[in-house]
């Protein structure tokens, strides 16, 4: 069981690395924000798996904080960052 938790955590990490492509690629700032959102959710899942694998309950609290921070980051991005400045409109 322990090894399954660790293997899945590693799988999610690889998943994250694949998501990096979207950050590099864009094309809009919103696309990059989406990748950040993916990181938040995946990080929560990884932390929960690691908490169970290593019997480390504190990691669950870290996951809880991540869950809260992901929302705050995105709201800050939309309200403060993106609606503020100009950039080219690209849909592809």
């Amino acid at each position, binding site marked *: 069981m322990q090894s399954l938790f660790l293997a899945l955590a590693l799988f999610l990490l690889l998943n994250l690395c694949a998501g990096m492509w979207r950050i590099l690629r864009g094309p809009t700032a919103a696309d990059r924000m989406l990748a950040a959102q*993916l990181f938040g959710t*995946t990080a929560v899942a990884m932390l929960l798996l690691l908490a169970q694998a290593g019997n480390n309950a504190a990691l669950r609290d870290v996951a809880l904080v991540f869950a809260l921070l992901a929302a705050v980051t995105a*709201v800050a991005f939309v309200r403060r960052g993106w609606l503020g400045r100009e950039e080219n409109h690209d*849909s*592809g």
Partner: protein
Amino acid sequence: MTPGDYLTVILLIAGGGFFLAGTVGLLRFPDVYTRLHALTKADNVGLGLMVAGLALHAESWAVVGKLLLIWLLVLLAGASVAHLVAAAARQRGVRMWKR
């Protein structure tokens, strides 16, 4: 392994599959709106299944509660963020992809 353990394994692997699908959608879908669909729905289901699998394995009810609370928070955050990003993209004039 007990029957509960088998169920945990199935739920966790299925959850991982949804995370993979979410990332594939994020990479393949043509515009920011469709990518939002992939990300919010697939990742929330993925996390939900993982939380369910881990809850079966949890050592106390308080841990089950914490797992559920985390999932609900991510669910709420995911849905609100999806709406905010979609509304902001529309306001900025990011065009919708049309087939």
